[in-house]
């Protein structure tokens, strides 16, 4: 078989089980693609020795007839996941040199299922960003281009390295994390599938924390089927994360029938934004038509507090981040600033954090500190948490009306050029998450499915939002949309 790196998880699994290919062959194919793709800056810590060792072990397991779903499949891991003995920096200078003594639950579960880790993937620093431009490793670059224009485009963020690596076939799939849209926006920008599960579906243990009430890990894959397979390996209760839910993990792949007859799909009128490109509006309409043709009923719904989601997010997420990131003090791990004679412990903290955190992280930590400070806690933080209750209730009301899933655009535009967005005004960049952030606030599962190509030749995606814990049903609706859309475009190789 040729071009093994281009396979998806399902195809590669089937080929492995038939004995048409070995995990070592799959892994070597990916490793040589990764070596030739430094221009994308997607893999920032390569682990070929670990990969080949795990591939050989996977081949032995398959040979012995013990082959769980992910067995032998080479994947990339976002740098936010702590991986034992392998740099895990969350894209930050402050974690330079940090080698975890432990493995995150999600990456451990993937390893136990036989998955092969190829290396760590680029991301925005501490997952704060929508373009992968805040990374200490430098920008990840999208494999996609606007036709013959060689402007470098963003793969999105914060899981930009994951999206670029999957879209460029450097790996079969990758892990991502999503706090405000960090799986779904990069997936939409790169023509890949990205699923944020229900909050609590995947353990957060060992994942560097950004905003603990919003963070959730999920799969980034080449197809909806692959997302179903990979979620099954990532999900499950973990006693070490008190917010992880003790619910059985269904066989998500078995639920992919493509039959969505009688399902009610909600179209929220508040997601029709002023200044939204016509192409996005048209794509959204086409998506609804596709689901309708597949037998679903399309209903108009209202989510009245949508416009307050981003402002609420930019109180809650920085507040939680300022608390979570207090641990980076130059004492226990990572970077410590060189101190001047006579510097005390306060100077050590202040200089270490000024050197170790990039501009966006510093900004958010300070905004979080401000909204939590005495006198402002009620005005900002508590008010935002109340608005969050109302946003969640909007969704509950829609589901109570019998809506099974909600269809929205995934992003307000196609991928933009690196350096083109929000240099002067951080809020410009925040608007990228306008369609995705509501889902994190409400804790719901959401998935981005590649659905079309814009006039520049760039992929566009739609988002489906499901009921809590109903990832199986959501994936099935996404599967029907994927089949109807028939998205097959791939970026032309220039790197």
């Amino acid at each position, binding site marked *: 078989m040729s071009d093994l790196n281009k396979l998806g998880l399902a195809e590669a699994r089937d080929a492995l089980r038939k004995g048409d290919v070995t995990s070592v062959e799959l892994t070597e194919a990916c490793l040589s693609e990764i070596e030739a793709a430094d221009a994308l800056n997607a893999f920032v810590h390569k682990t070929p020795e670990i990969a080949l060792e795990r591939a050989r072990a996977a081949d032995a397991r398959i040979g012995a007839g013990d082959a769980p779903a992910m067995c032998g499949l080479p994947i990339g891991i976002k740098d936010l996941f702590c991986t034992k003995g392998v740099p895990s920096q969350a894209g930050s200078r402050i974690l330079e040199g940090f080698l975890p003594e432990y493995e995150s639950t999600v990456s451990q579960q993937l390893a136990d299922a036989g998955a092969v880790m190829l290396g760590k993937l680029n991301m925005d620093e501490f997952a704060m960003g929508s373009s992968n431009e805040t990374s200490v490793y430098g920008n990840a670059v999208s494999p996609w281009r606007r036709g013959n224009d060689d402007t470098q485009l963003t793969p999105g963020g914060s899981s930009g390295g994951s999206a670029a690596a999957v879209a460029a076939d450097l790996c079969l799939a990758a892990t991502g994390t999503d706090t405000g849209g960090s799986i779904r926006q990069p997936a939409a920008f790169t023509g890949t599938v990205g699923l944020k599960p229900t909050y609590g579906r995947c353990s957060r243990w060992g994942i560097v924390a950004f905003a603990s009430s919003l963070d959730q890990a999920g799969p980034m894959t080449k197809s909806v089927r692959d997302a179903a397979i990979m979620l099954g390996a990532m999900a499950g209760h973990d006693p070490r994360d008190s917010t992880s839910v*003790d619910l059985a993990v269904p066989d998500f792949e078995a639920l992919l029938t493509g039959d969505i007859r009688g399902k009610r799909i909600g179209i929220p009128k508040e997601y029709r934004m002023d200044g939204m490109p016509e192409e996005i509006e048209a794509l959204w309409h086409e998506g609804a038509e596709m689901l309708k043709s597949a037998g679903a009923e399309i209903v108009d719904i209202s989510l009245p507090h949508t416009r307050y989601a981003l402002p609420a997010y930019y109180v809650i997420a920085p507040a939680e981040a300022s608390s979570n990131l207090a641990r980076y003090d130059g004492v226990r791990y990572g970077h410590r600033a060189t101190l001047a004679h006579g510097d005390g*412990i306060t100077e050590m903290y202040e200089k270490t954090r000024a050197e170790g955190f990039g501009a966006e992280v510093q900004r958010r930590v300070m905004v979080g500190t*401000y909204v939590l400070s005495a006198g402002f806690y009620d005005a900002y933080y508590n008010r935002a948490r109340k608005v969050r*209750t109302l946003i969640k209730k909007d969704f509950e009301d829609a589901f109570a009306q019998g809506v099974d899933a909600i269809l929205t655009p995934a992003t307000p535009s196609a991928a933009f050029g690196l350096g083109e967005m929000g240099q002067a005004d951080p*809020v410009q960049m925040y608007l990228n998450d306008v369609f995705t952030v509501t889902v994190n606030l409400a804790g719901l599962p959401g998935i981005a499915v590649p659905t079309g190509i814009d006039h520049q030749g760039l992929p566009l995606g739609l988002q489906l939002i499901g009921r809590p814990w109903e990832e199986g049903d959501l994936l099935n609706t996404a599967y029907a949309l994927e089949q109807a859309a028939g998205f097959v475009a791939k970026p032309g190789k220039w790197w």
Partner: protein
Amino acid sequence: MSIDESTAARVAKLARIRVEEDALPALAGEFNTILGFIEQLGEVDVEGVEPMTGVTPMRLKRRKDVVTDGNQQDKILSNAPDAREGFFAVPKVVE
């Protein structure tokens, strides 16, 4: 609500991030942009609304109050920028 340079300096101090004097005006400007954006929340009627504390109403799991982990001093110290004699070392705190 407008943030001036002295407030920006105070927030930087609270966050334990050193910000040089000449960077304060720009920082205050960015804070004002972000807070201006957040200010919209004031329009929402939140009378009688409980703050959201969890995504799914569930009772937190309990476990036995016993030691489940420990005895790994060397691993805990292995990533420290400065560890000596089994301790994290920091600049002098007490005169």
